[in-house]
């Protein structure tokens, strides 16, 4: 049972990461910066709880705040570039963050142990959960509280004018601008929200893993972050969830294939993207599901 709780916790980090990319993709931008926000959130939250002795919740929120601020800062220069250029610019940001942590050495003595980012040797000792007697189901509930909050927030945004604005910017910037939508505001807001959610996810992951290293936050993680909503679909917030399930099942399920796993994994993604070019949960599926849910009620029988 504990294993499944742990697995669901892991899904939680991935869903948050997928959601952080989803909100940016709604505005038509592809960002590889999510891994950088995730890393910054992980290190900040880890430092807060393990080094400075902060309680857990403020530590995680600090991770989210750091991610959000970085998202805001990256959002402005990112406005000047689009398409592949934005992909390269945001990937460069992730690499800058990774290299910063590769060179960051800031350790202190906490009791008998030296704790803190130690350059290439990583940051160990983020053991709040275990030192405070948290069982796997506590960690699961805590993580999923953030996941559900993020899902609800994005679902509400999707159904609000703000969501319509984001999608309008993503569909056609020129048309959106012509009806008075503030493109800068929409894109920077999306990047900030994405950074915030990725930072929260990073903070939660750091506490789950107890150890983080810059090696964990490279281009592969950035690629997965955008792959979750792209393969899962951007038709609704359930898209990144579907993407996470698809990838997670393949990652672990094909483990027995060794090196062949990467080959088959890639082939299955290509196949899936060909069959469902707009993702597993695309706009069409969302509309069909909505129609089903709104199935016409049988007219009441007329009285005699």
């Amino acid at each position: 049972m504990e294993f499944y709780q742990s697995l669901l916790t892991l899904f939680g980090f991935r869903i948050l990461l997928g959601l952080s990319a989803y909100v940016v993709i709604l505005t038509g931008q592809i960002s590889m910066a999510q891994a950088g926000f995730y890393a910054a959130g992980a290190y900040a939250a880890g430092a807060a709880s393990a080094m400075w002795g902060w309680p857990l919740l403020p530590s995680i929120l600090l991770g989210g705040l750091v991610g959000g601020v970085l998202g805001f800062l990256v959002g402005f220069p990112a406005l000047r570039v689009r398409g592949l250029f934005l992909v390269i610019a945001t990937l460069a940001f992730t690499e800058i963050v990774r290299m910063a942590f590769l060179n960051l050495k800031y350790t202190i003595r906490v009791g008998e142990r030296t704790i803190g980012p130690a350059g290439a040797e990583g940051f160990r000792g983020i053991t709040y959960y275990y030192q405070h007697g948290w069982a796997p189901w506590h960690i699961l509930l805590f993580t999923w509280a953030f996941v559900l909050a993020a899902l609800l927030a994005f679902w509400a945004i999707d159904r609000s004018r703000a969501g319509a604005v984001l999608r309008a910017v993503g569909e056609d910037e020129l048309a959106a601008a012509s009806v008075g939508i503030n493109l800068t505001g929409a894109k920077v807001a999306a990047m900030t929200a994405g950074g915030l959610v990725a930072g929260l996810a990073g903070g939660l992951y750091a506490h789950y893993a107890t150890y983080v290293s810059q090696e964990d936050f490279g281009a592969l993680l950035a690629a997965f972050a955008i792959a979750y909503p792209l393969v899962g679909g951007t038709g609704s917030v359930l898209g990144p969830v579907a993407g996470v399930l698809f990838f997670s099942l393949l990652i672990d399920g094909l483990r027995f294939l060794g090196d062949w796993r990467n080959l088959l994994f890639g082939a299955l993604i290509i196949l899936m993207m060909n069959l469902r070019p707009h993702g597993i949960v695309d706009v069409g599926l969302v509309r069909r599901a909505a129609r089903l849910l709104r199935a016409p009620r049988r007219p009441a029988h007329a009285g005699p």
Partner: protein
Amino acid sequence: MTHPRRHLVSILVLAAFASALAWFPAAPALGQERTVKIAGLGAMSGVIRGFGINSKAVFDMTVDELNKAGGIKLADGSKARIVTTFVDERCNAEEGISVVRKLASEDWLVVIGPTCSNVAEPLFGILQQKVGAAGDSGLQFPIFTDTAIKPGLAKISEWAFRNVPHEPTMYNHLFKWLKEKHPDVRTMAGGVESDFAHSNSNAGTMEAAAKAAGLELLGWEKWLLTDTEFSTQVGKWRRSKPDLIAISSHPFTLCGTLREMKRQGVKPKVLVGLTSSATLETMVGCGPEAEGLIIPTGFAPVTPEAKRVAKVVTERYKGNVDIHSAAVFENLQVLKRVIETSGVEAKPGTVAQDRRRIRDGLAKIKEFDGLLGKVKRLDDRESQKPYVFAVAKTSDWAVLHDPR
């Protein structure tokens, strides 16, 4: 959507869910045969996969031999067969945690592995820090590491054990010995794969050892684990002309560096490498360029048993015994001894107690017979292993000095 497409989507979804079945715990054996379940964990894919493949070969060979010899004796006197699995951690922390939590949720008694230090760190981190500590909800599951060599990891948890060479001891001895043999060697330059935890920490070990031996350090050149171009770094060595070059990197970038040194004509009087590169992989990748490379290693086929194990693993299990994989053989022998002497019952209801018995048994071991001789166990659950200095000679490893 057309019908064929619909079928394909259905197949994909089914494949994904079928693969999810791998997550379900294995059903207990239906037969009456008693079994002891030992899991292996290593990098079977990715850049570092060579280490995992060798560990698995030695793991399979040793388990086969132990089972052929009658298996393991349990507390009630009955004999149990060893049942195994070997799981890929892809040198990725998240995957390592996931698979160890799965193994811990099943009836595996102990894990041998992982390959990478960046996986060992979080794995030891999610274990209970101190045995029996109230309020510590970490996993109570013994892990006995063969490969992850970054110094000082076992102290993270009392459930963590390692049987890896002690690099500071080996390099201090090596540099002292080199200084005696080559008194004209005065300056040293280093090269390090700076984004890999083990290479990076070992660079510090090499630097301290070189300074202790009286060498003047000219500086460190850096590259990354996946780099393929080293002309700038090697160019600096060509200009600074160090007497000794120490390279702290794994076979892939070590070979790239050595090829570039040959191209630029950089020939130091002495060339020293990282423990993890004293492998056949280096010889296959760049044997001629590595000529003269000296590495301290915890394994060489210099005893009858070491020769026998190396031969069997190569011929029948398609792997190689090296500094890391040799420890798998030793770890399994030690586990057999611990299981037979610590009252392990191997019954469905005694998994937690058996894990604790194995942990306590491992903690009590003070010495055991390794492939190169006596291995001392230290209070911090690490090993002090015998070692030799190996040198690359005509695309093979030879023993340059045997201090045992």
